[in-house]
C-alpha cells in the first residue's frame, strides 16, 4: 500500500521562528528523509514555497481561469497530487490545465522549495 503524508502548518508559526530554529527544522527534515529512505519507505517528497506563491487554476467550459493564491473552496477536499517538472509558471499552468479534475474542482500550483544542503557537522 502507498500512502501520501500531507504536511500542514500555520505559516505564521514559521515566520515567527528565529533563523536558527528554521535552520534546525530543515536539518531535522533532511534527517527524517534519510531515515525513511534507509527503511525503504521514502518514495518522493518535496517542501513547498509559501502559500502566497500559489496560483489556483480551474477549467470551466474549456476555458482556463486563474486566480492568485490558494483559495480552494472549503467544501473541496484534497484528491491527489502531481509533481510536475516545468520551465516556469507558464508551462506549469499549461500542464496543469490538462489535469482532468481541473474541470470539476481546482488545482493549486505551487513551486517547490529546495531544502538547504545538509550541515557538515551532522554527518
Amino acid at each position, binding site marked *: 500500500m502507498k500512502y501520501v503524508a500531507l504536511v500542514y502548518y500555520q505559516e505564521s508559526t514559521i515566520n515567527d521562528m528565529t533563523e536558527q530554529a528554521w535552520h534546525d527544522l530543515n536539518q531535522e527534515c533532511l534527517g527524517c528523509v534519510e531515515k525513511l529512505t534507509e527503511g525503504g519507505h521514502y518514495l518522493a517528497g518535496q517542501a513547498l*514555497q*509559501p502559500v*502566497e*506563491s*500559489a*496560483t489556483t487554476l480551474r477549467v470551466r467550459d474549456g476555458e*482556463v481561469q*486563474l*486566480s*492568485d*493564491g490558494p483559495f480552494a473552496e472549503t467544501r473541496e477536499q484534497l484528491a491527489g497530487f502531481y509533481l510536475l517538472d516545468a*520551465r*516556469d*509558471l*507558464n508551462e506549469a*499552468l499549461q500542464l496543469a490545465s490538462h489535469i482532468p479534475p481541473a474541470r470539476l474542482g481546482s488545482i493549486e*500550483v*505551487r*513551486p517547490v522549495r529546495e531544502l538547504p544542503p545538509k550541515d557538515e557537522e551532522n554527518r
Partner: protein
Amino acid sequence: MDLEQLYQQHSRQVLATLIRLTGEFELAEECLQEAFAAALAQWPSEGTPGNPVAWLVRTGHHKAIDHIRRQQTARRHSELLTPEVEGPSDQGTAIYQDDLLRLIFTCCHPALGREAQLALTLREVCGLTTEQVARALLQKPATLAQRIVRAKRKVREARIPYEVPDQRELPTRLPPVLQVIYLMFNEGYSATEGARVVDVSLAAEAIRLGAMMSRLLPRPEVYGLLALLLLHDARWAAREDGEGNLVTLEEQDRSLWDQGQIEQGRHWLMQALAHPDPGPYTLQAAIAASHADAKDPASTDWAEIAALYGLLYQKWPTPVVALNRAVAIAMRDGPAHGLALLDQLAADKVLQSYHLFHAARADLYRRCGDRDRARLAYQQALTLVRQEPERRFLQRRLEELSSS
C-alpha cells in the same frame, strides 16, 4: 537633453532591460538609480554620450554585476559575468521595446490578483513612487508597499517568466493587460472625491500606457481601448460643474469637450474598425464616438447607439451592458419600451444592488410622468450609491421631482 527629462522618458525602458539582464526587480531598480546617479556625476564634465539609453543600460548592468559579486553569489549568476556590450542601437531597438512589453506582461500576469497587477503596473511600468500609487488609489502607503513587495516575491518564487507571450498565448494574455489599463483609467476618472491631494492623473497614465501599447503591440483591440480612453477623457472638463456636482451627458456643455482629443480618439477608432469582428473596447469606443458626433443631445443617433450596445451585449453579456442597452432603446423607442426591458432585468442580483439600475428606472418613470414610481426608484438608488457627487446628483433629481 537634461537628465530629469531623460529619466521621465527612458527610465522605464532602462528598467525593463535591466530586469531582463539581472532577472530581478529589486536589483534592477537599485541599479537604475545608480546608473542615473553616475550620469549625473559624469555627464556634465565628460559630455552626454551619443546613445544615452545604451550608456544607462550598460552602466546599470555593470552595477548589477558588482552587486552580485559583492554578494558572492556570482556562481549562481554566472551568465551575468559576460556583460552585454551592445546597447540599444538605432537598428536594434526591437529587443529593447520587447523589454517594455515583457515588463507589462509580467506586471499583468494572470497569476497575480487584479489589485496587485494594477499596483505593480503603476509602480514599475508608469514609474510612480509607492506613495503616489497609494494616494492615487486612496490606500495606505504601507498596505500598498506590502502588496507590491508580495507581488514581486510571487514573480520571483513562482517563477513567472519575463517574456512576451507568443501568438498562441496572446488571446488570453492581452485581455488582463487591457483590463488593467481600463481599470487604471476608471480609478482616475471616478476617484475625485476626497482625493484632492492626488498629484498624478491615473487617467493620463492610462492613456500614456494605451498609446505605448498601440505602438509596441499593434492590435485592433489595443487601438479600440486607446480610442475609448481618449473619447471619454475628452469629456472630462464638462462632467462636473463649478461646485463639483456631476453633470449628465445630456446636460453637459458640449463646447467644453476637447475636440483635439476627440479627433485622436476617432483616429484610433478607425484603425480598430479597419479589422473585422470588433471587440468590447472598440464597440464602447464607437458608442462614445457616436455621442461625440452629436452637436446637442437631441441629435444623438440613438438607433446607432442601441445597435452598438446590442453588438456589445453579444460579446460581453453582462447585466450592466444589458442595462445600458435598455436605456439606449428607451431613448430610441420611448421610455415605456425601456421600462419593459428593465423589468425583465429586475430579477438580476447584480443590478438589484446597482444604484444606476434604479437611477435609470427612476429617470424613465420621470420621462413617462409617473412621479410616484420615479420617486421610489430614486430613493432606492440613494440607499445604494457610494460616491458623494453621484449621491448629490440623485438627491437633486429627487428634489426636482417633488418641487415641479
